[in-house]
């Protein structure tokens, strides 16, 4: 898991340590759910910067 305190420190974010302790479990849980999803994104997939209706959805 990431060390959120070190990330906050490196980013010079003035988040008090007790607050960091409080949010770390939520961030860890999100990290566990999100990280595996990023492994298989094909290179040609661009960000969804605008809402796009795929043709299948319009049928």
């Amino acid at each position, binding site marked *: 898991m990431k060390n*959120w305190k070190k*990330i*906050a420190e490196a*980013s010079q*974010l*003035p*988040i008090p340590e007790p*607050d*960091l302790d*409080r*949010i770390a479990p*939520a*961030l860890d849980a*999100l990290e566990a*759910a*999100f990280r595996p*999803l*990023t492994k298989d*994104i094909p290179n040609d*997939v*661009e*960000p*969804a*910067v*605008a*809402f*796009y*209706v*795929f*043709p*299948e*959805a*319009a*049928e």
Partner: protein
Amino acid sequence: MTILEAAAALRKRAVSSAELTDAVLKSVRELNPKLNAFITVVEDSARSQAKAADAELSKGADRGLLHGVPVAVKDVFETRGVRTTCGSALFKDNVPSRDAAVVEKLAAAGAVLMGKTGMHELAYGITSNNPHFGTIRNPRDPDRIPGGSSGGSGAAVAADMVFMAMGSDTGGSIRIPASFCGTVGLKPTTGRVSRYGVMPLDFSLDHMGPLARSARDAAVTLQAIAGFDSRDDTSSREPVDNYVPPADCSIRGVRIGLPENFYFDRLDPEVDTAIRRMAKNAGSLGAHVVPVRVPDIAALNAVGRVILLAEASALMEKHAGNRALFGADVLALIDQGRLLAATDYINAQRLRRMMQHDFAQVWRRVDCLFTPTTPIAAPRIGETTVQFGDQTEDVRLASTRLVRGINVLGLPALSMPCGVDRRALPLGLQIVGRPFDEALILRVAAALEDSTPAPR
């Protein structure tokens, strides 16, 4: 009384807009001290708008079904000359110089604006337990939350204080209070309703829509507020449909998907029963109810959370130093977003595109989906966890679990009452449709209402 009933009564001169407005003001005076649904009531301007509506209607100048009908908007919609707080200490004295597009459109339709409804701080949460403007209570049981973030709108409509109240929905904030309070709540497709003049929580997940007493009332409202707006970069030029279902609307032949995966896991059993009963009702009305597998909604929720945390924190970055001005729960979310990597945000948006494509395949098989809106009825105020068998879940994550992903996909979805549990608390059915097919989900909801009037 619904908007349609009020509209008919106004045109028969059985009641005047001034009388409806007086009745609403009386109701607000009686109920608001207990429920705290409104942050601001604009009594004088409401009375003058009602008087003008009566004068126009008496001359035959009819602006449509909302003409002369008292409504409210969440305190996230800017109102010229009227304080707009976003439920935040940061904006407690904010008096905008413009109206939000939705406020403009409601005014053009002749609706009478009664005031601004309370909300979860910055629209960033689902309890509406607001540290700056007080706790909003659920009219069905004042010891319980109304849901959020549009909790004041849900409470005001459920308590019959107004005919309709506008909400905003970034991860369920219209549908959750609709479910907990027992109203209809509609989140339209991305781009269907202008976000211009709405204080943002998130750039790519915010949607505006009504909470109302019936599906047809939600449809009447959508008819008035939908359409392209060049002032909103995400606004769509997709033609505006005819949304209001006729009195004898049919759903014969409509293909309704009942998800086999995710949506029926970890539910209060009474919610499960209520949704399946609604599906059976739809089947008895001639719809084809079919089981359908949906893409990975848990993954979709994770993607949605990364996007929301990052975008909301980007918006709040300039205020984040004033830690004393935020409630603890909102501050925790802002801090979380500040710790995410930029690469994670970009990859979340790439995953979003992949998931939108995957989900589009669902519409080859069905025209809409039936799911629960929330896995539970309204929790008690202060309750932080909920139990599903031997699993404990955070109330906020449980309440958003079935609705958040739909914002990521940009699809239209509504919540409608589908019965009550053993404690007489309302339960919500979520109907999700294809992009820009609000007309279909409203028709399905109206047909279900016609066949099984919701308990009130």
